[in-house]
């Protein structure tokens, strides 16, 4: 009798284990009904280079540093539309910030010129579209070339047209055969420039990230930026950079929409990437005012924010935040 019970327990265990294991896997019938075999995972082709970065929760932010984060992955180099661009990329990948910047600037210029191509037009330059867009301050042309503003400032109409025509010709020559590269290249080179380059390169990456926001193709880059940028700014702020302390304080104080409306704060995207946190905002803005950079407009904006945020904090929190050191 006892042996029967023991045998039943063993068989019951066997059945349960088998059933559980099969439930965890697709049944053969399910797989057979699927379109094709599953020897590889094609959906990893584009996304396998994405590294999951930790979220910048406040507790994590205190212990994380940029050193823990891998650099954004660069897609494998293949010959592009321009050997000059490829050479710049090669130098940039070796850490040359100037080359990365030049690659980005040229890529940006040529991308802007995509809609001002000739499309079979064989008349005089500038084309009507280019001329109109330039004179109306089209966003794509606003920063395309410093000579554009000089040309537009010419009083004589014929000379102005001639200068614009020469500029368009030069840009078209430079961008002949242009083909935009995938978002991963542009983003990774932007990060290289920010990491190794000047303050301007750094803030360019923070305030005008090299990606298309809202475009789902750039999602990997958006996620990376949202996690990386606050850490980059925090590291700078900890090193005593007043601009970074101000940017962080304002970012914690307001979301994207508010940030856009605030002329004194150019870090709109940074604001969007961190949660509103009055205590953090109060700390960083207090630090900014203590170490002050003498910028009257920003100091006034920081004081106004402190006054507003102060109402959300206790007297003790305010006192601690005023003496806080990162």
């Amino acid at each position, binding site marked *: 009798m006892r042996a029967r*019970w*023991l045998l039943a*327990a*063993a*068989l*019951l*265990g*066997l*059945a*349960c*284990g*088998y*059933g*559980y*294991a*099969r439930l*965890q*896997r*697709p*049944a*053969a019938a*399910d*797989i*057979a*009904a*699927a*379109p*094709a*075999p*599953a*020897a*590889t995972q*094609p*959906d990893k*082709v*584009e*996304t396998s280079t*994405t590294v999951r970065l930790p979220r*910048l929760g406040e507790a994590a932010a205190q212990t994380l540093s940029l050193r823990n984060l891998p650099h954004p992955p660069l897609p494998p180099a293949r010959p592009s539309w321009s050997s000059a661009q490829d050479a710049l990329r090669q130098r940039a990948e070796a850490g040359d910030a100037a080359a990365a910047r030049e690659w980005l600037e040229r890529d940006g210029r040529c991308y802007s010129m*995509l809609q001002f191509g000739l499309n079979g037009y064989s008349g005089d330059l500038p084309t*009507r579209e280019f001329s109109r867009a330039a004179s109306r301050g089209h966003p794509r042309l606003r920063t395309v070339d410093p000579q554009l503003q000089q040309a537009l400032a010419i009083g004589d109409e014929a000379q102005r047209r001639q200068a614009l025509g020469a500029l368009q010709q030069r840009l078209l020559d430079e961008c002949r055969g242009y*083909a935009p*590269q*995938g978002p991963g290249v542009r983003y990774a080179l932007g990060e290289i420039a920010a990491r190794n380059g000047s303050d301007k390169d750094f803030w360019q990456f923070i305030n005008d990230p090299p990606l298309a*926001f*809202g475009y*789902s*193709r750039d*999602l*990997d880059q*958006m*996620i990376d*930026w*949202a*996690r990386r940028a606050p850490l980059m700014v925090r590291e700078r702020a900890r090193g005593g950079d007043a601009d970074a302390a101000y940017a962080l304080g304002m970012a914690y104080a307001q*979301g*994207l929409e508010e940030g856009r409306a605030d002329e004194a704060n150019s870090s709109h995207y940074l604001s*969007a*990437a961190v*949660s509103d946190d009055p205590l953090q905002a109060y700390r960083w803005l207090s630090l900014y005012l203590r170490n002050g950079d003498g910028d009257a407009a920003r100091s006034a904006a920081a004081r106004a924010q402190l006054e507003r945020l102060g109402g959300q904090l206790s007297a003790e929190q305010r006192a601690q935040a005023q003496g806080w050191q990162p």
Partner: protein
Amino acid sequence: MANANTLRDSVLLVALFAGGAAAGAWLGRSEAPAAAAAAPASAAQTAPAPEPAPPRETSTAAPAAGKAANTPAAALPPRDLPVADYFDQLAAQALQGDAAAARRLADDMAECANSERQFDAVEDILDRAGRGARGAGPDAAQERGPRPRRGREGSDDGLGEAERRLQFAERFLQRAQETERRCAGINAAQIARSGEFIRAAALAGDNAARLCYALAPNEWQRDLLSPEWQDWSQRWKSEAPDMVRRAFEGGLPEAAATLSAMYSPWQPARGTRPWTGQLGDQPYWAYAYAAVARQTLGAEAAPRLAEVMQQHAQRLTPAQVAQADAWAAAARARIRFEAPLPGTRDFWRSSSLCDGVRRAGGRL
């Protein structure tokens, strides 16, 4: 002593059950892959780039999605009711796995989120109409360049371009006002739940919602870059490709075109869809799905799809093309495809974001 024996027997029983369970689990795991590998062997011989199977429905099911099949969906409230009147009721149904309720709320919240944009669009149309009327002289015609080819909307009925725009603006304004009325009392927190609803609808089996969720992540979670958006996007990335496959298996013809694009190389051309190349560059599957799309998306889409198929076929051997054609025919026989969504002629009538996304998914 008797107690000691009982205890020993109990321990033995548990040990034997556990041992049996472990052995059973091992058997179960070792058997499944063998069966899976055996099934599609013939296809693998000629299909150079195999494709993952859609996972079982249970693997990413919503908390209550399992109820969807068994729970009869309650009738949806009429379209003209204010959304606030039924939001709570449908939200509760959506969380219980009611795909139709979830889809309806996702559409409603997307519409409410776009309410302001609709009025902006009307202003934009009116501005253009005004500019068109002012610039109606010969110089303006020259500036506009060659007259654009007229669509069905622009039949030659004697109306000027500016007047047509005004009529269009009027229709658009009516729709915007209707949206404003329906969305009165809906707050930002409710709108922010649109992503939750479209995902619930997708997981509960609504085919259009599957495609819509998979193709337009940032329309459903608009708080871009925020920590919540980061989590949303990370999860979306892991779910989106399978959602499109499920939409295809569920019989949504636009999903066939979407999958073809997802297996096509990304081209830096205007109009390239964001999902192009998302699954890599695999001409075999790009061709095979385009073949299904050509048979299911209707005559209007057929010429373009034939062109796309020809482009992909150039990168395949004749044997691979034949194999892909056979696969497409088998898919057509296996899956009962719905009719495609009608074209864009009356797009302004529809305020459904998902309808727009579905149409976009069906274009190559």
